[in-house]
C-alpha cells in the first residue's frame, strides 16, 4: 500500500515540485502516473523509493511512515522497493548477470542463491541467454529489460518505474507493459510514470494525472 498524505516537496532551486498531494494505492494495485514533463512524476516516485524526503506531509508505504525511518533503516527499506529508471542505470563494465545480481550482492546473499534468483529474473524478461554479455552490446529494449530484471530480482512488494518505455518504439513498449501486467498478476504493487498516453488508454488501469505538482485527475478504477 502506498499512501500520500498532504505531501509537499520543495526544491531550493526550483520551488515546489509537489503541492499538497494526497492519494492512496492499494496493495497489489497497478496504476499509471502521467502528466507533462516537470509535473512532478519523478519527484513522486523518488519520495516512494526514499531517494528523497518530503518537505511537508507523510508518505506511508506498506504501513510504514517513511519520515520516521532512521538513516540505518533506509537501506533495508530500499530493498523492499524495486525501481526502474528511464536511462536504466546499468553498469557498462559489468556483465548482464552482475548487473542483475547487484541488489542481491548488497544484501549479502549466498552465491548459489544469487545464481538461481538472477537466472529466474532473466528468464522472466526473456534474456536468459544474454547473462554473460555486457549491456552495451544489447538493444535499447533489451537494456531496459535488464533494468527490469534487476528491479524484480529481490521480489519486491512495490515496483516503481520512471518512463520505462521512454526510449522504446511502440512494439517494444507494449512488450514491457505486458511484463508489468504479469508482475501485477502475482500481487506486486506497481506505480508507472509515463507520458505515453496512447499506451495507457489501451490498458484498463487507474491513472493519476499530475499538473504542476497537483493531482488533477484520478481516473479511478475501471
Amino acid at each position, binding site marked *: 500500500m502506498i499512501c500520500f498524505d498532504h505531501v509537499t516537496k520543495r526544491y531550493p532551486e526550483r520551488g515546489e515540485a509537489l503541492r499538497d498531494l494526497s492519494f492512496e494505492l492499494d496493495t497489489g494495485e497497478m496504476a499509471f502516473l502521467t502528466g507533462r514533463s516537470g509535473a512532478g512524476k519523478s519527484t513522486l516516485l523518488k519520495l516512494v523509493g526514499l531517494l528523497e524526503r518530503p518537505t511537508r506531509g507523510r508518505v506511508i508505504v506498506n504501513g510504514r511512515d517513511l519520515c520516521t525511518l532512521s538513516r540505518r533503516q533506509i537501506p533495508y527499506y530500499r530493498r523492499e522497493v524495486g525501481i526502474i529508471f528511464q536511462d536504466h*542505470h546499468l553498469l557498462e563494465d559489468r556483465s548482464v548477470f552482475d548487473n542483475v545480481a547487484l541488489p542481491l550482492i*548488497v544484501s549479502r546473499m549466498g552465491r548459489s542463491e544469487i545464481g538461481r534468483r538472477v537466472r529466474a529474473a532473466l528468464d522472466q524478461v526473456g534474456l536468459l541467454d544474454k547473462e554473460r554479455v555486457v549491456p552495451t552490446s544489447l538493444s535499447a529494449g533489451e537494456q531496459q529489460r535488464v533494468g527490469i530484471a534487476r528491479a524484480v530480482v529481490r521480489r519486491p512488494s512495490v515496483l516503481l518505474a520512471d518512463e520505462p518505455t521512454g526510449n522504446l518504439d511502440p512494439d517494444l513498449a507494449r512488450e514491457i507493459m505486458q511484463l508489468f501486467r504479469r508482475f501485477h498478476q502475482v500481487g506486486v504493487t506497481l506505480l508507472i510514470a509515463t507520458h505515453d498516453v496512447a499506451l495507457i488508454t489501451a490498458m484498463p488501469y487507474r491513472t493519476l494525472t499530475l499538473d504542476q505538482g497537483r493531482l488533477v485527475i484520478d481516473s479511478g478504477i475501471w
Partner: protein
Amino acid sequence: MGTRRRHGTQSRIGMAIRVWLSHHGRSALASLGDLTRAPAASMMTITVVGISLALPAALHLTTRNLATLVQGWQEHAALSLFLTPNLDGAGAKVLAEQIAAHPGVSRVRLITPDEGLAELRGASGLAEAVGLLPENPLPTVLALEPSPALAGDSTKLTALREAFASLPGVADARLDTAWVQRLDAVLALGGRAALVLAGVLSLAVLLVVGNTLRLEVANRRREIELMSLVGATPAFVRRPFLYAGAWHGLLGALVAIVIVTSAVILLQSPVSRLAALYGTEFRLAWLDATTLLSVLGGGPALGLIGAWLAVGRHLAACEPR
C-alpha cells in the same frame, strides 16, 4: 520439535556468518586485486607511504643507536680528585686504597705529578712549554671510574663527588659529565623530533592514501550511487575502499621496513670500521619490536582512516534529502 527449530536457527546463523566472512574475504582479496589493476599509481602511493613511515622510524633508530653509544661513554665518565700538595706519595696511596673500597667506585688510578707531567709532555705541542716550567706545578691526581650502577645517574654521581671533595687531603673533585648530559639532552630532543615527525608524516600518509582513493571513488561514483539505491548499507559500500586503504598502508609499512633495514645493512660495516678506529666495538641496532609493530600497525590504520575520509563525502550524497 523445539530442538529441531533451535538447530535450524543455529544453522541459519552459521550460514549468515559464513556468508559474512566470505564476503569480507572476497572484499579484501578483490581490493588487493584492484591495486594491481593500476600498478603505477598504487606503487607510487605505496612508496610515498613507505618513505613517510621510514623517516620517523629511521630518526628513532638513529637516536636509539646514539643513546647506546653515549651509554658506553657514560660508563667512562671520570671523577678526578686533585690532592693537596702537602700529602706525600704514601699518604696518596693510602687515600687511593680507601677510595677504592667505596661501593660507588669500580677503579682508581693514581697519577703522580711526574706521571702527569709526562702525560702532558706527550700531548701534542706542549713539550716545549712544559720544558720552560721551573718546577712541576701538577698535583697528585686520583682518577676514579664510578661503578656501572652509578653510570648515567647524574644526581648520584654528583653526591659521590661531593662526598669525596670533603675528604681530608682532597683539594678539589671534578666530575667530567657535563658534556654527556648535554648529549643526553640532544638525544632527548632527537627522540621528541622523531615523534613530531611521525605525527606530521602520519598526516601525510592519511592524505596520500585518501587522495589516491578519492580518485578511485570518483571513478566508481555511479556504482556507489547505484549500490545505495538498491539498498546497500553505507558499511557495505565503504568496505572495499577501507580494505584498499589498509592494503596501501600495510604495503607502505613493509616498504618502510625494507628502507630502514637496508640503510642499517649499508651503514653497518662503515660504522664498525669507524668504531674500530676509535678502539671500541659498536654495532648498529636493528628496528626494535615496538617500532616494528607501530609501523606495521600504524600504516594500515592510517590507510583505513584516509579511505574512510575519502569515501564518506560520496556516501553522504547518496542519502535522501
